[in-house]
C-alpha cells in the first residue's frame, strides 16, 4: 500500500467530525461550525465497549420478556420476539417471518459480534484485513437502524388493534428493552473510530 498521500494526523491536522473542516490539532473549537475538535473520537474504544456491553445485557430481557400481549375475549396471550416469528411461520407468512427474524435476531446479534471484533482488531487484528474491516464498519453503521422494525410493528399494532373488549393488543416490556438495544448499539457504532485501525496499520508499515 503506497503512502504517497498524507493523513490528516501526520500533518498535525484534525478533521472536524461534524463539518469535515481540516484544522490544526491544537484547535479546540471548529472555526466553521463550532463543534469540539478531536483528532480521533474521544475514548473511542472504552466508550464503544461500555455501550456494547450494556446493549448485550439488555438483549437478554429483550428476548425473554414478552414484546406484545394480545387480550382476546378475556384471554391474555404473551409473545416474545422469537415466539412471534414462530407464530408467523405457523400461519404461513414465511416472508414476513424472515424479515422480522433478520431484523430482530440476525442483524442485532451480528452487529454486536462484529463491533466486538472491530474493537479487538484495533490492537491485534491482522493488518492485511484493514480495508475489509473498514467496509464491515460501514455496513454496521448503515444497517443498525433497520433492527427497529419490530418495535415499530408493535407500536402500530397497539395503536391499530384496540377494539373495546373484543381484541386489544398491548406492548410488552421487551419492546422497551429491544429499542434500548438498537439505540445503544447505534451509539456504540457511532463512537467507534475506524481511523484507529488505520493508525496501527501505518505504524506497522513504517
Amino acid at each position, binding site marked *: 500500500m503506497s503512502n504517497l498521500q498524507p*493523513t490528516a494526523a501526520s500533518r498535525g491536522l484534525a478533521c472536524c467530525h461534524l463539518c469535515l*473542516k481540516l484544522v490544526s490539532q491544537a484547535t479546540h473549537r471548529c472555526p466553521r461550525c463550532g463543534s469540539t475538535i478531536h483528532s480521533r473520537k474521544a475514548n473511542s474504544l472504552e466508550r464503544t465497549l461500555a455501550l456494547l456491553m450494556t446493549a448485550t445485557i439488555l438483549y437478554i430481557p429483550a428476548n425473554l420478556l414478552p414484546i406484545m400481549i394480545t387480550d382476546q375475549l378475556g384471554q391474555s396471550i404473551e409473545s416474545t420476539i422469537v415466539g412471534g416469528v414462530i407464530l408467523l411461520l405457523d400461519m404461513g407468512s414465511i416472508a414476513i417471518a424472515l424479515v422480522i427474524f433478520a431484523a430482530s435476531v440476525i442483524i442485532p446479534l451480528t452487529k454486536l459480534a462484529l463491533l466486538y471484533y472491530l474493537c479487538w482488531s484495533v490492537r491485534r487484528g491482522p493488518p492485511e484485513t484493514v480495508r475489509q474491516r473498514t467496509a464491515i464498519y460501514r455496513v454496521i453503521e448503515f444497517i443498525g437502524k433497520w433492527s427497529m422494525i419490530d418495535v415499530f410493528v408493535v407500536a402500530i399494532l397497539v*395503536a391499530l388493534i384496540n377494539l373495546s373488549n373484543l381484541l386489544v393488543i398491548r406492548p410488552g416490556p421487551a419492546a422497551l428493552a429491544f429499542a434500548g438495544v438498537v439505540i445503544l448499539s447505534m451509539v456504540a457504532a457511532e463512537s467507534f473510530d475506524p481511523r484507529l485501525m*488505520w493508525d496501527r496499520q501505518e505504524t506497522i508499515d513504517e
Partner: protein
Amino acid sequence: MVSRNKRREVSFSTDQRGLTVATEREANGANPQRSSPDGLACRSCDLIFDVSMLRDGESANCTRCGGFLSRYTANQFEQVAAVSLAALVLLGLGCSYPFILLKFNGLESAMTLPQVSLSLISHGMPVLSFCVAGFIIVIPAVVLLLLLAMTGAIVTDRHYRWLPWVGRVIFTLKSWSMVEVFFLGVLVSLVKVSRMATVEMGVAFWAYAAFSVLFVLAMSGLDRAQSWRRIEWLGQ
C-alpha cells in the same frame, strides 16, 4: 440525486488507473464556483484529498479504504429545498388524516400517525412513545424545517448568524430519523393484520409513503462537505 446527466464516478483508485489526484485535476479543470483549496480528510482512514475539482454529478471515494468523500451537484441546494418543502407538506398530511382503517366483525377503528406514539403512553410506556415519535415524526420534521432554512439561505446567497448552528443540528440529527424503517414496519403490520381483519389504507398512508421516498431523496442529495463549504463561503 436527481441529476441523470453524466453520473460519472471519479474514484481515483490507484489500482484501477494509477492516476493521482493532481493529474485528474488537470484533466478536468477546477470548478470555478468553489475556489477554496482546503482538503478533505477521509472519515474512515484520515487520508487527505482535494475534492475541489469535482464537476456536476461526480462523486469521489477514498483511494485507500473506499469510503465516500463528497459529491458535487451544481443545483444540489435548489433540489434539496424543493424536495424538503414537498416532504414537509406530505408529512403534515400524513399526521392529520387516517393512516389505516380496520374493519373486524362489524367493528371499525381508524389509526392516525400520532396515535402510533400516543397509544404507547396510555399503556404506560412514555419513554418508548417519546422515542417512536422522535424517530418517525419529530426528528424528520425538525431536520426538514432546518434544511429549508439552510438551503433557503444558500440559494438566496445570504448569511445569517444562526446558519452554522442550523447546519450542526441537521447533520447531528440526520442519522436518527427512521422514516424508511417505519414504513417497512407499516407494510409488515398490514400483512399481519390483513389475516384477521379487513384493512384499508387511508390518505395518510399514501402521503407518508411519498414522504418517505422524498425524505430519503433529500437526505441522499445533501452533501456534508459541499454544504459546509457554502456556509463558510457565505460567512466570509
